[in-house]
């Protein structure tokens, strides 16, 4: 394997990234939580000790909601239900049926997981506002059920369950309960922080930000959101377990819809996606109104309703997010991003031995009689299409000739009305996009799918996350350099051409035997275009990658394609080697007034 030494000076990675302030926010939030959770007890102030116990439980719930909201893209109005299920699970089992606490804890978690399942199952099928209504319904229904099922819940009277042992001072006057209530939000924050830096976290967020891009990377968005709901439910249920000793009794009044709204609004007001957001948010929508409006409790919903409306209209990024934005702006003034080059990759590829042309004539991908209709429009009309390993196959034709529709069939975004499709030795006519992606197909998009919430490096890394083959040693070194260079890069500052290059690198790192490029050269500079065509040639020669290239730049297509298929109104009108095709009368009109092709 290649052992080329890299001469350019890779900077060592700094401990904290300047792309986001997650690390600083995590420290700041943990510090604030420690102070509020422990200091009142040190001074023996029982009122504040108790108040901050409840508040910190609420913050923990809000941290999970923040993660669910932004990192998994799920809007839930029902987190109060999950909190209540955890609390009632424990209180019913141990407070009513006198089971040991361990059994109660178990039931609390089971109850909240079951509630989470109610949200998670529809999440497999539908996204967005649908789940907003499901969760809102649950928030309405839950208190009604608590009242109705009074055999279990003792109705409006609630269940009294003081757990005095936990409130005994453990250390310097601080009780076990206070420690637990302080630990809960800090653990939740650590979870959020770690999740963001994990493969699963990146894949969830990719699914939240662009379901299509996710599907093309083998991610099933439904599974991701479902999983996110389950994780958040169990976490929120654990907070519910703490709620019982913190308040000493549970009643339906504690889990009215207002509670769910407080968690939701706290996320928005604090700043969506900001780690410190939930702390600031709970203080702003719960704590401060509670102190200021102690005699005017009726006004509380009005106040947090207005605060939230005000924030979402004037400061959509919330309190922490707005401050964070100032910080980012200052940085932007500092200069642009480092240019993103393919040279490291092409250098690495050049040094590899040529791919042994094993089954050169056995197509990896075969389509027969593919037809796709949208209503009365036939977008793809009885198309036959073959692709061999290592082949660069150009797909050309006017706008609306069905090129992208064919690509969408190939990667599984749309299903043929008629025809058959075999890929890597299996019939995938009815397979979904993630299944086809997993079998070894990658693609780019006409509009590059670049995620502003990820650093440039993490944008590339989602391709790596989807990789199923082993990493060659030479590539690892290149990636380390790329990480050093782009870990703090802001994708919003990249030019259009650079975004395309980024997406190309992503799909190369996924390492698929088949790659589809949808108009990759549009908007590239001359130099970038050169780099790109060199890369495609190398992919095919060195890795045996089969490439489908949809492109308007005929010069580019003619210079790198081994075979070209011409589409017109959904049908194949010509297909063959570039040299033969250029003399085909059916294709001549494509060049009218256009590019000089030296075939």
């Amino acid at each position, binding site marked *: 394997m290649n052992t080329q030494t890299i001469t350019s000076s890779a900077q060592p990675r700094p401990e904290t990234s300047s792309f986001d302030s997650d690390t600083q926010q995590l420290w700041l939030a943990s510090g604030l939580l420690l102070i509020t959770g422990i200091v009142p007890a040190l001074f023996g102030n029982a009122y504040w000790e108790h108040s901050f116990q409840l508040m910190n439980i609420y913050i923990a719930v809000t941290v999970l909601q923040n993660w669910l909201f932004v990192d998994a893209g799920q809007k839930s*109005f029902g987190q109060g239900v999950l909190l209540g299920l955890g609390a009632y699970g424990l209180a019913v089992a141990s407070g009513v049926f006198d089971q040991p606490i361990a059994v109660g804890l178990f039931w609390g978690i089971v109850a909240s997981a079951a509630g989470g399942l109610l949200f998670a199952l*529809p999440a497999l099928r539908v996204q967005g506002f649908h789940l907003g*209504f499901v969760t809102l*319904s649950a928030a*309405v229904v839950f208190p009604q*059920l608590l009242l109705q099922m009074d055999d279990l819940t003792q109705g409006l009277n609630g269940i009294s369950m003081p757990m005095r042992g936990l409130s005994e001072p453990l250390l310097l006057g601080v009780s076990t309960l206070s420690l637990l209530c302080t630990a809960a939000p800090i653990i939740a924050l650590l979870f959020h922080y770690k999740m963001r830096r994990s493969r699963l976290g990146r894949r969830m967020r990719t699914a939240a930000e662009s379901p299509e891009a996710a599907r093309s990377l083998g991610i099933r968005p439904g599974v991701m959101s479902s999983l996110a709901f389950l994780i958040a439910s169990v976490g929120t249920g654990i907070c519910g377990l703490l709620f019982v000793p913190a308040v000493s009794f549970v009643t339906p009044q504690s889990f009215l819809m207002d509670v769910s709204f407080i968690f939701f609004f706290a996320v928005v007001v604090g700043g969506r996606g900001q780690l410190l957001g939930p702390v600031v948010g709970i203080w702003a929508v719960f704590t401060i109104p509670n102190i200021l409006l102690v005699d005017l409790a*009726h006004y509380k919903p009005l106040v947090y309703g207005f605060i939230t409306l005000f924030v979402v209209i004037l400061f959509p990024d919330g309190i922490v997010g707005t401050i964070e934005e100032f910080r980012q702006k200052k940085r932007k003034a500092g200069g642009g991003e480092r240019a993103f080059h393919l040279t490291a990759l092409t250098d690495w590829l050049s040094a590899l031995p040529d791919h042994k042309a094993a089954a050169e004539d056995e197509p990896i991908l075969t389509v027969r009689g593919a037809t796709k209709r949208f209503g009365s429009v036939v977008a793809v009309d009885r198309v036959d299409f073959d692709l061999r390993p290592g082949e660069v196959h150009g797909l050309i034709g006017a706008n609306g000739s069905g090129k992208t529709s064919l690509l969408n069939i190939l990667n599984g975004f749309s299903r043929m009305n008629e025809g058959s499709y075999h890929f890597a030795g299996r019939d995938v006519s009815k397979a979904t996009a993630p299944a086809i992606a997993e079998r070894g197909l990658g693609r780019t998009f*006409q509009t590059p799918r670049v995620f502003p919430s990820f650093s440039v490096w993490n944008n590339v890394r989602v391709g790596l996350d989807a990789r199923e083959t082993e990493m060659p040693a030479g590539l690892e070194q290149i990636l380390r350099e790329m990480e050093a260079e782009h870990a703090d890069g802001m994708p919003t500052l990249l030019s259009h051409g650079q975004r395309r290059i980024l997406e190309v690198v992503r799909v190369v790192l996924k390492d698929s035997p088949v790659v589809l490029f949808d108009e990759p050269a549009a908007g590239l500079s001359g130099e970038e275009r050169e780099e790109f065509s060199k890369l495609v040639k190398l992919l095919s020669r060195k890795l045996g990658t089969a490439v489908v290239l949809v492109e308007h730049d005929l010069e580019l297509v003619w210079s790198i394609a081994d075979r070209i298929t011409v589409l017109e109104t959904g049908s194949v009108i010509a297909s063959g080697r570039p040299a033969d095709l250029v003399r085909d009368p059916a294709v001549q009109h494509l060049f009218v007034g256009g590019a000089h092709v030296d075939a």
Partner: protein
Amino acid sequence: MLGDLLMNLDMITTIVLRGAAVGSLFAIIAMSFNIVHNATGILNFAQGTIFLLGAFGAFLFANRAGFAVWIPMLVVVSLVIGLFTAAQGWLTLKPLRSSVEQNSWIISTVSVSVIIAAVLTLNFGVFGNMVHGPVPRVSIMGVRTPGAFLLAIGSMFAWYFILRWFLRRTFQGLAISALSQDFEAARAAGLDVRKLQLLAFGISGVIAGSVGFMVAPMISVSPDAGLRYVLNGFVAAVVGGIGNNTGTLIGGPLVGIVAAVTAFYIGGAYQDLASLLVLVLILMFLPQGLFGRAAARKV
């Protein structure tokens, strides 16, 4: 034996009538969802409290009144609520212009809903108020039926046909339909998209407000009732296929009858649970609804 059967028939008629009447309200909320959704892609979570504003309008300005007062007040209240909803639409669409986060509308419509309910609670307390309307009881198959039930069912059909005419026969209506087909194309064709969207919000307000006003005698006019209607209205919209008004004619009464049957056989407190289960099942097995069309994917 025959007496039993007759009693059963009475009972069934009562359940079906009640379910259909309440279900018509859900269908109407669903239609008011649809027009805004088709024009903007937004579902207004405040639609239930807006419906309730109509009912409070009747409570304040037309309680126990005769037709001479009731009809003009109906018109005034509906128009005021229409304007209010258009203003809400303006506020809701405002952040969408600049913000990267496209789901701000979920937050702003929910917070408007919370604000309306909070204002109503501050002014009228949390308990339900009784409203008496001018439409007398009538006897249907031997069952004495409140006039508001008929108003509910009648206004479902009335609004259905008015909307159908508006969306197919008037310039603004066709333009709103065009928005639901292809937003960018409509803009490119020179339509004033924002104005049309505000019009859609306004119309949705008039629909919800007018019906809330008319059916006030049959509902619990209390501030927290709005949520019940917005949720069931959404279930009706999902059952019928979101964006499809014809679907609501089935979806609404279906949800209403499920709720009425649940209330009768299991208990009133379980009605909303039944709707929630219907919603979850439909979303899992028929996410496009009974009459929805699958949208072509755009890549």
